[in-house]
């Protein structure tokens, strides 16, 4: 066990090394900072997905990953969503394909989008509570306990749904779809199966799973980051973003210089999850729990220093006049 663990760590180190190398290559290749972030983010997303695959070979890691995801917003806001989440990566990849086809995207009406954002807290509560009720009604047989149940037994096991978006396409356990000894999965499919099974029709379960896959794929073709508008995992800790006493908490946040903003609306349009707060708020620290810190708006805002990403008081990235005479075109 220990040897395996060290082996895993070694693999991860190699992965981290490759990621850093990739970042360096991008930095050198893309001198123009404006488009750098998009590439960087893609690379990091891929690296994160691969790490998740390795991590998941150990059930204990599932637990740790879950804790990290849930605690991260306290300090980093929804950085996880913008930069690490594998489901996010799949949706971004679909967006890339759509761009390739030169097909336009659609938007949800702002009101609906904001409603969904609040609604996800209801969803979250629902998924946290329901397993307990089910557990009372219908206690699970001991053998159905999955790997994770080693850590969290019984009803807590169903909380694994919060790991839904993190599921890699190829999973290191017995996933729902097997093709030549490789197990394939897809975010939430296990949960969809789990909950459909409660209705105990075998065919129905499979159909539900496929319907979910199809819906999210088609959905994210037309709506950028479609699932992020529902996702309970992505609910950021609203307290730290909304309430005055806690505003210091997220170390990573977007900052706007009021007088430099011409209200051109670019940040609003380019945001994949249709956050309007960057555009609307007067200036200073942008406080919204909808923003997943993907930094697309900062990248696209055409005014020098207007938007900044601050990490613990230090500016790590800022908007710039991306039309400026670039050294490399």
């Amino acid at each position: 066990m220990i040897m395996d663990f060290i082996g895993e760590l070694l693999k991860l180190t190699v992965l981290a090394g490759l990621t850093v190398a990739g970042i360096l290559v991008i930095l050198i290749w893309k001198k123009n900072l404006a488009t750098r972030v998009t590439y960087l983010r893609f690379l990091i997303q891929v690296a994160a997905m691969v790490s998740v695959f390795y991590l998941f070979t150990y059930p204990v890691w599932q637990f740790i990953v879950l804790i990290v995801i849930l605690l991260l917003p306290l300090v980093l806001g929804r950085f996880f969503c913008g930069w690490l989440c594998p489901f996010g990566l799949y949706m971004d990849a679909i967006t890339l394909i759509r761009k390739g086809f030169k097909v336009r995207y659609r938007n949800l009406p702002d009101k609906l989008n904001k409603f969904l954002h609040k609604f996800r807290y209801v969803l979250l509560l629902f998924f946290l509570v329901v397993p307990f009720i089910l557990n009372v009604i219908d206690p699970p047989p001991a053998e159905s306990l999955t790997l994770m149940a080693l850590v969290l037994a019984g009803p807590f096991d169903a909380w694994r749904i919060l790991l839904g978006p993190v599921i890699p396409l190829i999973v290191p356990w017995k996933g729902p779809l097997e093709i030549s000894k490789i197990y394939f999965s897809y975010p939430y499919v296990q949960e969809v199966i789990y909950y459909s099974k409660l209705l105990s029709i075998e065919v129905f379960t499979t159909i539900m799973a496929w319907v979910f896959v199809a819906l999210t794929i088609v959905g994210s073709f037309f709506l950028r980051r479609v699932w992020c508008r529902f996702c309970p995992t992505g609910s950021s800790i609203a307290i730290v973003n909304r309430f005055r006493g806690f505003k210091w908490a997220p170390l990573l946040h977007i900052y706007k210089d009021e007088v430099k903003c011409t209200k051109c609306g670019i940040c609003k349009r380019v945001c994949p999850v249709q956050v309007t707060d960057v555009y609307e708020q007067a200036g200073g620290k942008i406080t919204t729990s909808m923003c997943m810190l993907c930094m697309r708006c900062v990248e696209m805002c055409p005014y020098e220093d207007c938007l900044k990403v601050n990490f613990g008081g230090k500016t790590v990235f800022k908007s710039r006049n991306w039309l400026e005479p670039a050294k490399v075109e």
Partner: protein
Amino acid sequence: MKNPSEEKKYMLDISQKEIEELRTTIRATSKKMTAEYIERMRKADKNRPEAMRYFDEIADFEKREKELLAAKESGKKVIGYMCLFAPIELILAADAIPVRVNSGWYDASKLGDRVVPVEVCPMVRSTIGAKMIGLSPYLELSDALISGLTCDGMTKLSEILSDYKPVWAMAVPRLKDSTQSLSFWREEMKTLMKQIEALTGNKITRSKLKSAIELTQRATKAFRRLQEIRKGNPVIMGRDAMLVNQAYMWDDIKRWTEKTEALCEALEERARQKSWACSPDTPRVMVTGTPMIWPDNWKVPSIIEEANPQGLLVADELCSSERLLYDPVGVDEWTMDDMLNAIAERYLMASTCPCFTSEDGNKDRVNWILNKVKEWKVNGVIYYVVRGCMLYAMEYMRVKKVLDRMSVPVYYLDTEYTREDVGPLKTRVEAFLEMLTARVDI
């Protein structure tokens, strides 16, 4: 596309003879004035970069008139515009040539008095006058005009000009920060696009629109580079920079971009050699308010920079100069839809035209001015208003209050389309600059 009807709604009949006479005299005066202004600009700066020569030449409307005539002969269309709300990219994408047709001729405003009352903004009167006698080559050569219905003057001007040419009016929503406004404005854009396509007979395709946007983006890049240079010690006089900016309104955009880049090159070199256009201690002035249009309406910048003590124009908030190109069209995805959205947003939302209001007043304009004051280290602001320009006049108090709070002096300079008040204006400006100089010395 409907033809302007034979019967004139507004315009008066003037005899051909009178037209000829007036045109010849006004043109001659204007030509003289222009040459004189250029000469004075040359003299103002001993080491004026050679690259400015191109702009001196293009400032002579006759040069560009010849080019436009040649282009029209080869089948190209010329589309005139009166307000910055006209989407240049759409015009370019349809292979047409955009030119701005507002008039700066002082003498023409007297003619406009015959059609509209003298209380009306002189720029509107002058444009009417220019049309009456065929003074402006750009107005004459335009096949159609795009008019943004911004202030009252502009709205009626488009009606009056429709006596002569097809005028495509675009209703500008006065509240710009709402989804309704934006979706309305997008529809206006799409309608205009169809009109442009019908006139030119060219379809605006995705790739054509893309290259048009890239063309103006490059122009914006050059433009902003020039303004960036003006942040430092003076290497270019304000009037020169203003002329460069204005030339964009009628020049070929690609050539303008190249020439401006070349000028910036020269200016950056000049900055390295520390050869300043005037003393770096000269008070740095910004003008805001009613547009000042070349060729005639050049008195205020000249007065500021020729006054004693001298002032240096480092920035402005004029729709005839820096507001022309400050904002780029920011495209997220190069689909037709997103490009059109980007264009619509750029022209509506980034605009600081005083015709807008919001819950917080015309906050964007105030922010623009504050930003310029801070970044361009402006010592004083001249708030220029011509008589009859209601919106700018009314917004003065708002701007003044904000600038007062920052203790940046602001001076309200009201004038007319006339050469007669140059003396008194000069005295007023000098008093203001005197005060600024005293402050700079401290």
